[in-house]
């Protein structure tokens, strides 16, 4: 079988912030009833953390869970283990009302690092990115210019962005433009 390759194969750009295409990331979209104890236990078993609160992302050593909507989670796991985890998840939830799919190859992941990261994102997304409002562990689905995207901020002040693979090039060019060294605004 051919080797899996991420959308932009780790392309990177350094401007006022560093934009990097992350490479392969395992992603499972999981729909179900958050209050169901079987569901909660299944999430704990797969990614090692509880169901996140509204618009949050929780992490553990083996994965992360992100709040996508009142009935949808995005589970982030190691790419090579995605199929195995998905099978385990389906087994654990069998008989309950749920949907779980592997969407790893349908998405592209980016990181934006550097002090100007907030500004780079604030210029292209209709989100209040003030440090008082948007903190580490916060997760948000929104749009980046003309495309749908989701992003979160980790403890190291790095922004992680997920978008559809088909628009990965657009996303990279957009972030690149926003992170141009001469395009600083200096708000945050």
């Amino acid at each position, binding site marked *: 079988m051919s080797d899996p390759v991420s959308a932009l194969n780790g392309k990177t750009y350094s401007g006022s912030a560093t934009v990097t295409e992350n490479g392969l990331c395992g992603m499972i979209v999981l729909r179900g009833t958050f209050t169901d104890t079987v569901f909660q236990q299944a999430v704990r078993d797969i990614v090692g953390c509880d169901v996140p609160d*509204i*618009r949050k992302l929780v992490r553990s050593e083996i994965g992360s869970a992100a709040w996508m*909507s009142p009935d949808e989670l995005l589970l982030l796991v190691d790419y090579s283990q995605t199929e195995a985890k998905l099978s385990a998840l389906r087994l654990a939830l069998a008989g309950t009302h749920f949907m779980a799919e592997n969407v790893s190859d349908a998405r592209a992941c980016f990181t934006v690092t550097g002090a100007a990261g907030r500004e780079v994102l604030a210029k292209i997304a*209709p989100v209040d990115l003030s440090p008082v409002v948007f903190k580490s562990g916060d997760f*948000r689905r929104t749009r980046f210019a003309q495309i*749908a995207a989701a992003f979160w901020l980790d403890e190291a002040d790095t922004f992680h962005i997920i978008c559809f693979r088909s628009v990965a090039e657009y996303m990279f060019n957009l972030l690149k433009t926003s992170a141009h060294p001469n395009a600083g605004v200096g708000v945050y």
Partner: protein
Amino acid sequence: MLILECPYCGVKAEESELSAGGEAHLTRFGPGSSDDEFHDYLFVRENPKGVHFERWRHANGCGKWFHAARCTMTLEVFGTYSAQTTEPPQEIKDVITAKRPGWSWRNVSDETNTEGQRT
């Protein structure tokens, strides 16, 4: 710029993150209904100057449909509420009554109770 708070994810979403879904609280007339009922269901819409109820979808967000009550003249938003209802909830009606005494929209007004009956 219209800013609506999504009742599902709590985001104060601006218009560009939402997609409009037309008039709220329509009763569907499908197979078995009369031609007039079907015609009205398809084509007849309110076009008020003032209080209006609409459906919106948080398209670039959690993806959920919800309802919004707003004023078409001033763009003031009275509130947003769940899609799982066939009529505006009492608290939304109370907010509108406080700001627009004497308002009415279709068979809903500041004088109707939750069953749509005049008090």
